[in-house]
């Protein structure tokens, strides 16, 4: 599906927000779902694969979605060159998103760019009259982005940085531990070790936990079986059985 670049804003030296006119995606998207993005024009076969990116924000009314991405390799470097008016070919919305748990107190935990899907989630939680706490963990203070957007939704935001240059010094798991005394529906996205740690905390505290996982993808729609994620019942597909799983469904050490 062809979409059009509205804006491609550099937020830090490595992190960009790409805003796209994509009415169909915006109409159907659920928080936690992703789009599968082609990074080159149709006449080029390299890079060959699409890139999965979470839907960072979404406005049905305006027909736009936003993606928040970090430049890590060839594909994201190409994305960073996009300019307003350029066309972007994407598939989506794809995958299983977050389940909004009613009657529970939500806490959103994002490690690094794991923050990406949580803004859209926060927006939908607010629409459902819940008021999530948002916990953000980053290496350095200069990597912290999108805080204002959460604040604009009237969410409480707490930050932990490893170098202590913003918020508490330390890991986001420390923040989470404290919050599990009152909040009991956890939505988390970030590196596996972080998710595994959060899962341990939630088991202890009796909180419900959903995690959004990453795995390299081929088709992105469930057909090729390359995006395998170990579960007690064999391998699940991150692209269609996930990317969001209930913590119990998956083996987070794998």
């Amino acid at each position: 599906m062809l979409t059009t670049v509205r804006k491609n804003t550099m937020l830090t030296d490595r992190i960009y927000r790409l805003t796209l006119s994509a009415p169909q995606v915006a109409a159907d998207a659920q928080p936690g779902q992703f789009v599968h993005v082609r990074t080159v024009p149709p006449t080029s076969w390299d890079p060959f694969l699409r890139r999965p990116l979470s839907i960072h924000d979404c406005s049905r009314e305006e027909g736009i979605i936003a993606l928040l991405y970090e430049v890590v390799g060839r594909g994201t470097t190409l994305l960073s060159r996009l300019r307003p008016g350029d066309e972007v070919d994407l598939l989506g919305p794809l995958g299983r998103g977050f389940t909004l748990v009613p009657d529970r107190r939500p806490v959103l935990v994002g490690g690094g760019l794991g923050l990406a899907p949580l803004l859209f989630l926060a927006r939908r939680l607010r629409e459902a009259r819940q008021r999530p706490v948002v916990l953000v963990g980053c290496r350095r203070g200069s990597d912290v982005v999108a805080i204002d957007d959460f604040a604009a939704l009237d969410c409480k935001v707490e930050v932990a940085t490893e170098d202590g240059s913003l918020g508490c010094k330390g890991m986001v798991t420390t923040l989470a531990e404290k919050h599990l005394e009152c909040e009991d529906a956890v939505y988390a996205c970030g590196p596996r070790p972080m998710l595994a740690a959060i899962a341990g905390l939630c088991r202890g505290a009796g909180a419900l936990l959903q995690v959004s996982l990453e795995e390299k993808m081929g088709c992105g729609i469930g057909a090729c079986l390359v995006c395998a994620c170990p579960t007690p019942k064999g391998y699940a597909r991150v692209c269609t059985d996930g990317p969001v799983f209930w913590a119990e469904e998956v083996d987070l050490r794998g």
Partner: protein
Amino acid sequence: MADLTAVLGPLQLPNPVLVASGTFGYGEEYGTYIDLNRLGGIMVKGTTLHPRRGNRPPRIVETPAGLLNSVGLQNPGVDAVISEELPKLKELKCPVIVNIAGSTVDEYAQVAARLDGHPTVAALEINVSCPNVNEGGMAFGTDPAMVREVVQAVRGSTDLPLICKLSPNVGDIVQVAEAAVEAGAQILSLINTVLGMSIDVGTRRPTLTNVFGGLSGPAIRPIAVRMVWEVYQALRVPIIGMGGIASGRDALEFILAGAGAVAVGSANFTDPGVCLKIIRELEEYIEAQGLDGLSSLVGAAHP
């Protein structure tokens, strides 16, 4: 409207564009993107006697104009395929071809026997790129004698049209093709993935847990076209050509080299609508050239 019917020995296809095994699951997922009935045929994913978990991730790594995969034949086993998957494909208008795999000659034969006579199955495609556990894990497809043995065993277990899918990881593809045909394969598929690997310079370890993977995508197209050409030149046998096809032009390249039909694999990942686009482009070509069908193009690049 151009007539795109493709006839490959005992197998007749509504058009020459199939989807390649393992890249398209059992079709279902792509059904939300395209009308599956318009495909030339669906080659479903590799089926073994018993269920297989598949390899530990990562199972894929992108390479220049292609990708390496090491799915490791994850599948629910032939019985589940018969009870769960084939019924869903029953109403489909296009032929369904089941790709079969095994670790021993006997396993191939048993899988074939269970599928024999199944009304939803138009043909079997024998994937000989699997490691032979009785030969120290050497792939069946790298040795003409082992290919002969597998094809013969399968031939003895079914009356279905038989396609042998050759491995490109050989010095002389014609020799292997000959063995397959002599043993009873009526059609040849070529090529399966090319053995490759990638190393993660960060971890200094192979990127795929399985170390090796199969290279597919546009990168391998020139190798695949060459092998189709060589086999057609030597044997004039019906061929399903594949390896990097992503456009009508690419499909024509294989057809002109000698393929009576083609299969599209990795390109589906880039564009789920690519097969219908290819069919349309072939129709346009045939009409623009004033031909009444495909057949005069098959192998037409040979002197």
